[in-house]
C-alpha cells in the first residue's frame, strides 16, 4: 500500500492541484483556464473576456483611469485570479505609476483619497451572443487609512 502510494505521488498531486483549482474558481473567481484544473477550452470566462477598470476617488468624485502599461503583466494575473492580494498590489502599483504622493509629501498637487479596481467579465447571450458585463471582483483602498508602502 505504501509502495503504491509513493509510486502514485504525481497522480495524487494532480488530483490535489485540480481540486484546489475548483475551490479557487468558486471562492476567488480563478479562471477555469488557469490553475491546473484542466478547464481550458471550456468557457468564454477568462483571458480576453475579462477586463479591469481603475478608479481614483477624490472628495467623493470618481475618475476612471487607464491602467499604466507597466502594470499590464500584473493586471493579466489579477484578471485571471482576482484576489485581494493581486488587486491590492495593482492599486499600489497604480499609486506609484501615476505619481500619487505618499502621505509625507503633502505639497505634491495631485492627490486622491482612494483607489478602486474592479474586475469585469463579458457574458454572452446564448441566442445572439450579445455580451453583457458582469462585475466579479472589486478592491478599494483608502490611502489615508492604508497608504501604500
Amino acid at each position, binding site marked *: 500500500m505504501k509502495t*503504491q502510494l*509513493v*509510486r*502514485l*505521488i*504525481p*497522480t495524487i*498531486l*494532480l*488530483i490535489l*492541484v*485540480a481540486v484546489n483549482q*475548483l475551490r479557487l*474558481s468558486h471562492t476567488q473567481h*480563478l*479562471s*477555469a*483556464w*488557469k*490553475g*491546473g*484544473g*484542466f*478547464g*481550458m*477550452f*471550456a*468557457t*468564454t*470566462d477568462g483571458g*480576453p*473576456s475579462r*477586463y479591469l477598470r481603475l478608479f481614483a476617488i477624490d472628495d467623493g468624485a470618481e475618475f476612471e483611469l487607464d491602467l499604466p502599461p507597466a502594470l499590464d503583466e500584473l493586471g*493579466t*494575473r489579477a484578471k*485571471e*485570479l482576482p484576489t485581494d492580494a493581486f488587486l491590492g498590489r495593482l492599486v499600489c502599483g497604480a499609486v506609484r505609476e501615476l505619481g500619487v504622493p505618499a502621505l509625507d509629501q503633502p505639497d505634491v498637487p495631485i492627490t486622491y483619497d482612494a483607489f478602486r479596481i474592479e474586475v*469585469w467579465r*463579458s*457574458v*454572452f447571450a*446564448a441566442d*445572439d*451572443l*450579445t*455580451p453583457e*458585463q458582469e*462585475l466579479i471582483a472589486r478592491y478599494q483602498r483608502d490611502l489615508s487609512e492604508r497608504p501604500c508602502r
Partner: protein
Amino acid sequence: MSLTSSNPAPRGLVRRLKGELMAIDKVDLISRLTLLTLLLQPVGFWGVRPILLAVSVIGLLSTTARQHWGLWATLTVLTGARIVEDWPMSDNHAYLLVYWCLALTIGFYRAEPEIVGRLNARWMLGLLFTFAVLWKGLLSPDYVDGTFFRVIFLTDERFADAAQLFGDMTLDDLDLAYQSLSQPLPPGAELVEPPPIPESAALHRLAILSTWVTLVLEALVALAFLLPSSLRPLGWLHRYRDFVLVAFCTITYPIAPVVGFGWLLLTMGIAQARDERRLLYLATFLLLIFYRGVPWASLLVERLG
C-alpha cells in the same frame, strides 16, 4: 568505431526502421520523447528556459544522464519553478509536464521506471480528461449550449482559419464580430443601433459539432483509461483506450493551438500501452509535428480564396 552502411532498398529500410523503433526499450523511448517535447516546445521564463533546454539536450545525448533520477528531478524543479513564477498564468500542460517529470524521477529513483510510468500515465490520462469533462459538461455555464465555440471561432485569431474554412466566414465578418464581442461598453451603456454580430449558419453548425465531438471524445478517453476492463457494461472501452486517445489527438490538434500538450499525452500513452501500439503512437507524434509545422489551414484558405 566505424560507421557502416548497407544501403537497404526502401522496403527493407522501412522494415529495419520499424524493427529499430520496436526494439527501443520502452522507458528509454518515453524518456527521449519527453525530452524531445521539451525541446520542441520550450517552456519557462529566461531564468529557466536555457537550463531546461540544456538539460534536455544532455539527456537526449547521454543514456546515462537520461536514466538517472537526478536529471528528471532537475527537470521537475525547473518546470515547477516556471509554474510558481508565472502563477496563475501557466496552462494545463505545464502542470502535466511537472507531474510527468516527477513520475520519471520517482521511477528512476526507485529503479522501477516502467511500473511507475505505466501507473501514473494511465491514471493521470484518465483523471485529467475527467476534470476536463467536468468543466465542460457540468461547471461551465456556456459550453454545452455551444456559446463557447461560437465566441472562440468569432474572436480568437488562432481559430480564424478554421472559421473561414469550415464556417463560411470572411475576414471582414470576423473583424466585425471581434469588434462587437471583444470591446465591451461601459456597464449599463447600450448602443442605439448595435452592430449585428455576423455569424453564418455554417459557423453555428461548426461550433455545435466542435462542442459535442470534443466533449464525447474527452469523455471516452476518461472512461477508457479509468474503467477496469472487467467492469460491465463499459469495461470493453479499456481495450480500445489507445485508439481513443490517438483519435482525440488526431482530431483536436489540427485546430487547437496546444500541440505540446498533444505530444505529452502521446508520450504518456506509450508509457501505459502494450508494445504493439507503439508505432501508432509514434506516427501520431510525427503527425502533430506536421500539424504545427505546416500552416495547412492558412494555405487552404489562400488556395480556396
